[in-house]
């Protein structure tokens, strides 16, 4: 192992990717529909969620005079836009395979587009709404950073024989989340350096994420055509299933999730503590989907 210190901050640019979902099986973790669908919840939440990030940051950009932060935000917006598009590709495939996600994704479009959606900033009250949305996103980005760090290091997924295209999507996305993990935090701080703004959002974001995940897994397992003949108990997710997957290393342990989410409460919190930029850059240089998009 080299003794050089590694770069922890890199310039951010969107990477183009190409995924071929045509051969993706429904249970892309072989023999494990539960874990497959836990991870599939990402495809239900992220397209609408990340488009909301893009719209919110586009609104914030004209107010940012710090050149370096501007450059970071421009790169961040592009990365999130490509992420949203890539996950939308999986949704199409699910639909074609007999699992119609639209009842759920329509609700996400409504929640992120209408309820949380941006209206033009024409007053200081509107601006406060914008800054609150930036703070909500910073809290969500903390979650995506440690989840990205988890997925890059989860050899349980390799051992489980996860479909390589899906594994690449999860790790490419996770690596870019690790790569840009400080942007949302720095942007929120640029507008509001107070802890009260930062901390209160955790009490909205953490319960929402938990609730949405449970709801998403229940929805997917109920609609999975391959599970249609199973008894009702087997078509529902259970805590014991999660614990079993965590033991195999295909999902993070509950305790791990709670501890890492809780780090957001520390006064000394900074996103740079939540993963390795060098590890992320290494993965991104080897991602088959990123190499495939090179013309």
């Amino acid at each position, binding site marked *: 192992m*080299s*003794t*050089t*210190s*590694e*770069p922890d*901050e*890199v*310039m951010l*640019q*969107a*990477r*183009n990717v190409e995924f071929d979902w045509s051969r993706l099986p429904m249970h892309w973790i072989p023999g494990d529909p539960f874990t497959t669908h836990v991870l599939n919840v990402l495809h239900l939440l992220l397209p609408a969620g990340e488009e909301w990030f*893009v719209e919110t940051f*586009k609104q914030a*950009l*004209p107010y940012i005079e*710090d*050149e*370096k932060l501007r450059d970071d935000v*421009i790169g961040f*917006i*592009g990365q999130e*836009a*490509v992420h949203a*598009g890539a996950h939308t590709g999986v949704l199409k495939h699910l639909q074609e395979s007999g699992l119609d996600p639209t*009842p759920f994704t*329509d*609700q996400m479009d*409504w*929640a992120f587009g*209408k*309820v949380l959606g941006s209206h033009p900033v024409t*007053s*200081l*009250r509107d601006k*406060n*709404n914008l*800054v*609150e*949305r930036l703070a909500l996103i910073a809290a969500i980005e903390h979650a995506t950073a440690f989840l990205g760090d988890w997925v890059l290091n989860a050899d349980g997924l390799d051992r489980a024989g996860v479909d390589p295209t899906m594994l690449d999507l999860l790790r490419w996305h996770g690596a870019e989340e690790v790569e840009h993990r400080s942007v949302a935090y720095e942007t929120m*701080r*640029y*507008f*509001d350096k*107070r802890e009260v*703004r930062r901390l209160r959002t955790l009490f*909205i974001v953490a319960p929402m994420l938990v*609730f949405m995940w449970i*709801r998403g897994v229940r*929805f997917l397992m*109920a609609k999975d055509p391959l599970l249609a003949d199973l008894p009702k108990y087997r078509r529902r997710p259970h805590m014991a299933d999660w614990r079993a997957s965590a033991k195999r290393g295909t999902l993070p342990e509950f305790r791990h999730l709670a501890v890492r989410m809780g780090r957001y409460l520390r006064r000394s919190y900074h996103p740079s503590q939540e993963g390795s*930029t*060098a590890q992320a*850059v*290494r993965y991104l*240089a*080897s991602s088959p989907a990123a*190499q495939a998009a090179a*013309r």
Partner: protein
Amino acid sequence: MTTGDFPADLRGRPRTDRAMRVIGTVLSHYLRAAERAEYKDAVAGHNPDRAMNLVVTGREVVAADDDVAAITLAARDGGELPVWHPGSHLDLHLPSGRRRQYSLCGDPRDRHSYRVAVRRIADGGGGSIEMHALQPGSPVTVRGPRNGFPFVGSGSALFVAGGIGITPIIAMVREAIRAGMDWQFVYCGRSRQTMPFLDEIAQWDQSRVFVRTDDEHGLPKPGELLQRATQGGAVYCCGPTPMLNTVRREFRECPATALHFERFGPPPITNGREFDVRLISDGSVVAVGADESLLTAVKKTRPDVAYSCQQGFCGTCKVRVLSGTPEHLETRLTPAEQQDHMLICVSRSAGEQLVLDI
């Protein structure tokens, strides 16, 4: 919120969704609470201006044909400069107002100076001529260093440098040597006269080095540049765009698994025509030149127009087309979206004028 505002039940029951009613109400109250207070600038965390006023402390010709100069910069008081890692570049503000980025080619362990190398291009934008005119004592304002091409070396690596692309690569190879990595290095150029740093490179383990020149070896044959890549290793490449495109294409057949290169800005425009764009917000008309993108032209009067990749794949710069026919040159929009939207970073106009919702 009234019932008409809520989405349908998730499981298709004939009512609005109860969970969404609760969540929607909670979230909209939360945001409305934020709107009850006005945003106050006093809470903002104003970031300090990161520009540094440096001074040129050295100037050295480093290629036999005299066209490449290595400029050394330091703080006026000789103080410590920000840390950088191989692959980083500096953003220089030249006396004329031009801004240019150059890769750092010195030693990261030297905390008191930065070194860049510039090839003089007679018919370029004038930046390199200005850089070559800098003398010891000249003041230069810089921003950075920033790293768009990080060296994250471990294991084995093949370094491929073309022309002035040697500047970030040489810092990486020195690092690889120091770390005891398994490295190989290919350095391409027109002729040995034009290539900087050959003296230093001659000191390295020559069994790992291949200096190839067009005049001696001819143009590289297919697969030649990546011949020395190892199974599972990394390739770091920096050089002219055609060389980079060749390496990216040939990488598919190569046993290495990771390809690192500096991702530059927008591609040059070929076969462009002039056209006009009318911006609906104030009716102003922007002229788009044959060799500039729609985005570049609009940014002159609308500096806050949104964009990101500038290559037509991320979709950030999507705008609604109100009139006129776009020429779509991107890879992101669906046919349905292309009916009334376009990506202004790469797409152009099929006709004389477009009217855009900007």
